[in-house]
Structures are given as structure tokens and as C-alpha cells.
């Protein structure tokens, strides 16, 4: 598990809407579409630039979806890496002013 804390913020170059417990996201840069499942949606909604990823995993993933922290952390890091790669999420080692 990475030792450095990470902070997540939603990019401004996106369109997004949460419908029920799923979220549709479209990149305004290349029109790529993503659909997030309920777990992804929980992380997405908590990506406020200030809440550390470890707390998001603990409070929004482990607590609400009843999964062990190791599994949740591995999946969450894979998830944010993929969204960051497409410019959907901004990831930083420091809080991100909104």
C-alpha cells in the first residue's frame, strides 16, 4: 500500500451525473464515457480535494460495502489511477483547493 497520502478532486474538464448509485462521466477533452458502479460512485462523490484517500476508503468503501481495507485500497488505487490517466480525476499528495 502506498505510504504517501493522496487527495482527489474532480477535474473541471468533465460532464458528470449520478443516477441512483451509479455515475456517468464524460471527458470534455476526448468525449470518452465512463460509468462508475456504486463503489466507484462513493469514491467519486467523496473526491472533494480535502479528504485523504485513506479516509475515503475507510469511510465510504470499507464501511459501506463491507470489504477489507487491503482489498478496498488496491481496487481504489487502480480506479483512481485509471480515471487520473484520462484526466477525469486530479490526484495530488497535497489537498487540492476547490
Amino acid at each position, binding site marked *: 500500500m502506498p505510504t504517501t497520502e493522496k487527495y482527489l478532486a474532480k477535474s473541471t474538464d*468533465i460532464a458528470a451525473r449520478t443516477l441512483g448509485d451509479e455515475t456517468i462521466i464524460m471527458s470534455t477533452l476526448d468525449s470518452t464515457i465512463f460509468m462508475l458502479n456504486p463503489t466507484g460512485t462513493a469514491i467519486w462523490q467523496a473526491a472533494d480535494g480535502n479528504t485523504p484517500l485513506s479516509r475515503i476508503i475507510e469511510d465510504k468503501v470499507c464501511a459501506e460495502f463491507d470489504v477489507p481495507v487491503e482489498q478496498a485500497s488496491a481496487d481504489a488505487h487502480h480506479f483512481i489511477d485509471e480515471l487520473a490517466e484520462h484526466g477525469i480525476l486530479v490526484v495530488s499528495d497535497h489537498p487540492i483547493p476547490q
Partner: protein
Amino acid sequence: MSLLEEMNRKATEQGIPLSAHMDITWKCNERCVHCYLDHEGKNEMSTAEIKDALDQLADCGTFFLSISGGEPLLRRDCFEILEYARALRFNVKLKTNAVMIGTKEAARLRKLGIEQVQISIYSDRPEIHDAITKLPGSLRRSLAAIERLKAEGVKVSISNVLMKQNVTSGKAVQRLAKEIGVEFHIDPTITPMLNGDRSILNLGITKEELEEVFHTEEFIGNVGEFCAPIAEVNDDILEGYSCSAGHTLAYISPSGDVYPCVQFPMPCGNVREKSFRDIWYRSEQLTELRSVHVKDLTTCSGCGHVGYCSRCPGLAYMEGNMRGPSTSDCAKSEARTGIPSAWQVKSGARPGPSLVQIRVA
């Protein structure tokens, strides 16, 4: 199933207005001969009212938002509205004639992350385009704006509405779009005026011209596939709906009236008087519209074209019955396949099948 199809299916099942079209003004700096709107611009919503309506749409789950008019950029607060819509994370398309888009405006639209700017170009020849828009110099100005938008990296789509005046211009506009590197859409539909005046339908292209459009590979793609009649009509088709209007698509007029679609002027309520949510989920008109399945359509449910017809319930509504045929779509189905629609035969517009038929093996 693609993600978009999956999203549409879920929105239909859950009754979510996934797409909304909002005209922020009906005022316009052009006077297109085929336009279905009046341009008086009376009783328009204020900036605050429009922002409130956008808040409500976002709250109801709207993702795709078309901002249009009239000419939306005639409103001084157009960019403020676009900025607000983007802050609410709508996927925004702007429909405009673009004559007011200069370098600064193009840069602003790019910065805002507008998904696409859709611009009507009627011909590559100014004497035809400008005669349709009745604004001298409009073709030159619209094309210059497209170049500016392209230079900024904004996605542009050229829409080419075909009518008598420009029926020979389609291929040239398509070539122009290709040269510039933008999307191209051709549309042979003339819509009656929202006030019920149908006189502008006389501008529509002839049956023969429509057939030619539908048999032109450059416009249609696979002509054989597009024009082939599909014989089988299954339960999925009969239990389905004609289109997304009122199911996943809503329209809001500049004065706050809610319709199922801009081409379906059935007043369902006004966002100045009721919440959008209340109108969307509780209006009698939308409830009735949603009860109409293809199997309930008078005449059309028994028509051989029913499986692929582009039948518009809004145009049918403007003809007097939202369960009836939209005759311009009957004409389209006939132009595609060479086979008259059930309504065309029933109304006597076309002869029915002969009583005595000979089949040669």
C-alpha cells in the same frame, strides 16, 4: 450494449430526464424562412430563473443539455448561463448560427468545455444561404466562426436542413464540412410553426428529391440497409415507444413552459409555477404520453413500416393526434422503401394493393 445505450435504457426504466433542450430566447438575428418560432422574445425567464431551472434539471438527473434559441448568444447572460451549466457538470451542446462568435467567444467556449457547437449551414453559396437566413453576410460570418472554433479545438457540427431553396446544396455543404474537418448532418424535416401555422411546410422538398436524398450513399451510408423494408414486427417493437420525448427528453421554452420536446408543443406545466420535478413526474400530459406504446398507435401499429419508421409523436400531435401518424414520416418511410405507409393507403393518398395479384416465381 454500449455505455450510452445502457444509460438510456436505465433512464427510460427509471423515468429520468437524461436529456434536456432549453431555448433561452426565441429572439434571433436571422429570419430563416423555415423557422418554426416567433421571435418576439416576450416573457423570457430571467438569469436567476434559468439557473434555478438548471439546478432542478441537474437534481432530476439530466446529463445532456442543449442550449439553443432563437439565437442564444443574443442574451447578454448567455455565457453566464453556459458557465453555470458547466459548473453543474452538464454535458452541454450549444446550437447557434455562430455569427456572433468571434475569437474571444470561441476561446471562452473552449475554456468552458462545451461538448459541441452545432451550426446550421444551408449552402456553400452565400446567395442561397443568406437568402434563407435573410441576413446578408451570414454564411461568411458563420463559416469564419467555425474556423475560429476549430482553431480553439471546439467540436463543431454542421447541420444542413434541406428545403426547396437549397435542395441541391447538400453534397457541397457536406464537402465543405469535410474540408473544414467538422461533423455533418443532413435533415430533410420542415417543422410546422409552434403556433400551429403549417404554411412553411410548403418549403419542404418533393417526394422525388426525398427519395434521392435517402438513396445517396454519402448522406445515408449503407443505402441497401437504410432503405430495406423490415418485415418482422415483434413484441419489443410493439411494446416500445416512438421516441424519447417525454420519456428521457424534456424541453423548456424561454418562458419556462415544459414540453416533451421542442417539436412536441404539448404544454405540460411551467417551471415558474411548479417545480420541474413535479411537472416531469406528475403532469397529466406526460403521464398520458408515457402510456402510449407503439401497439396503441392508430393506423401506425398495423403499418409495415412500424419497426423502423422515424415517426415523430410531436409532429403527429401537431397534426391533431399524438397517437396518429406524422405524415412527413410516412413520406420518409415511403421514400426509403418505395412502399406506401398504411396511412397513405388508408387516406387514399396512395393506391392500396390490387385485389388480384400475380406472383412470378
